[in-house]
């Protein structure tokens, strides 16, 4: 092996360590008594689950986890469903106003979210949806990016398939469901992962709209816990809460890593 190759390997390994070690360390601290928070190593003689117990005792983190699952799940299903409908219509159907809708989809993706943050909050409050699932879910039910991805995928599917199905009397919805969607599995996975991840990790919007503990999402609750006084500045407990936030994603990632990478890579290309 040449010197250069060796150097490259060293650089890569050093990099990888700097990416893995912090997580390992975080996990280790979460499993050790609070007094050991100074230690930068990974090993200890006193592993304990006390920190995790403390988190469960002090905040309704289980509820927050369920909230996040429910919200992210609902939003993801909704986005996939509605984006496929609109993407299909834009790709394969002819109707009035089609061009306008396409233009609006593009424009909606270009306008930064900061513009609508405050008015959207006011709207949610006006509708009485503050501190409710509605306030957290409804604004995110649709996605311009989802529409674009589906449209792009559907355009490549030949018209002949549709004509054949139509001749057998199938409705548009059946065509979409039975023919197009099965052929668009990569698109579904991509949109699913992107949407789920985005919704799961979202903190700013829940912070604005939700103030009641029982309705908080998981990242929001963990942030409030570590930043507010409830953790009492006890680092081991904070890391335990953080681990609970991070583990679901890490676990899904380790199984579906390939799909995550593809999903995010393609979102960038299209965006």
């Amino acid at each position, binding site marked *: 092996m040449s010197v250069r190759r060796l150097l490259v390997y060293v650089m890569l390994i050093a990099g*990888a360590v700097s990416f893995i070690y912090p997580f390992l360390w975080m996990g280790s601290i979460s499993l050790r008594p609070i007094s050991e928070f100074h230690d930068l190593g990974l090993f200890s003689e006193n592993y304990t689950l006390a920190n995790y117990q403390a988190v469960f005792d002090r905040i309704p983190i289980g509820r927050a986890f369920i909230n996040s699952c429910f919200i992210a799940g609902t939003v993801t299903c909704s986005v996939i469903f509605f984006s496929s409908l609109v993407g299909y*219509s*834009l790709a394969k159907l*002819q109707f009035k106003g089609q061009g306008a809708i396409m233009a609006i989809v593009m424009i909606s993706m270009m306008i930064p979210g900061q*513009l609508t943050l405050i008015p959207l909050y006011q709207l949610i409050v006006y509708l009485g949806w503050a501190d409710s699932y509605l306030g957290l879910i409804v604004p995110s039910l649709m996605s311009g990016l989802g529409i674009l991805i589906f449209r792009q995928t559907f355009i490549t599917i030949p018209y002949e398939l549709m004509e054949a199905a139509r001749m057998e009397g199938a*409705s548009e919805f059946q065509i979409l469901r039975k023919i197009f969607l099965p052929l668009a599995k990569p698109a579904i996975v991509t949109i699913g992962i992107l949407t789920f991840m985005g919704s799961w990790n979202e903190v700013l919007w829940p912070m*604005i709209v939700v103030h009641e503990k029982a309705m908080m999402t998981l990242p929001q609750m963990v942030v409030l816990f570590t930043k507010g006084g409830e953790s009492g500045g006890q680092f081991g407990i904070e890391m335990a809460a953080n681990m609970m936030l991070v583990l679901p994603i890490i676990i899904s990632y380790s199984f579906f890593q390939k799909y995550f990478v593809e999903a995010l*890579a393609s979102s960038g290309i299209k965006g």
Partner: protein
Amino acid sequence: MQSEQSKSKTGILFTSPYVIHLLVFFLYPVGFSLYLVVHRWDLITDPKYVGLRNFKYLMSDHLFWQALANTLYFLAIHIPLQIIVALALAVALAKPLKGRVFFRATFFLPVVISGAAVTILWQRLYSTEDGLINYVLSLVGIDAVPWLTDPGIAMPAIAIMATWKNLGLYIVFFLAGILAIPQPVYEAAKMEGASSWDEFRYITLPLLKPTMLLVVVMSTLGGFNLFIEPYVMTGGGPLGSTMSVVLYMYKQAFSFQHMGYAATLGFALALIIMVCVFTQKKYLDSERYY
């Protein structure tokens, strides 16, 4: 036999939920924000029309300009750092290498994790006395750096953390760009006696311009969106050096209840972002080479 008409009806049916949603949750808020920027409103009493006073206040609000400067400072560090490190690692991973998939997967891990979790972790890593980073630095003889308590270092600290978090994503982008360059191009260059560095400088780099643009635009958007990082890590301090525009907007809206002014900040920020991205696209999106 489906008629054109019923196809058209279906089209309208399929898209109407989206259109309704758009009207209510996008167009209305955009419109309302334009209404809010010329009003004062504290959420509880009625809005009061004030014309262009919010904009006037914005012009002389040095806390806003400081937040903007902070963001530009962040970008000035984050973008070059991101490009250099991601590109270097992408070039390394573009060659056939043992464990390529493992490395790519490892670098990509923080991308999928919530920014809040990363910030909470890094806040500890940056601890001046007993943080992991200063410990590692001490091993090579560098004194403890006051990452989060020095006004000049706090924003760079956040920029470094942001680079770490998104590195994997940009490596993937660069990898895709590099692997898209046809081998014959390199082979031709080799035959003419080009060195590795020449290859990189005259072939790879120019052909990566579209990817470069993508990285720059996405990093810029990320920088302007900074909220949870300063919120959790520094609260905007020390001495306001990590106050981002979004954090400032949040503060104006929800700590001080200046809804009209917060909407004005949002409006100004959106405008700035669009100008920035537009300029970047214009500057970097030159003719392709193939």
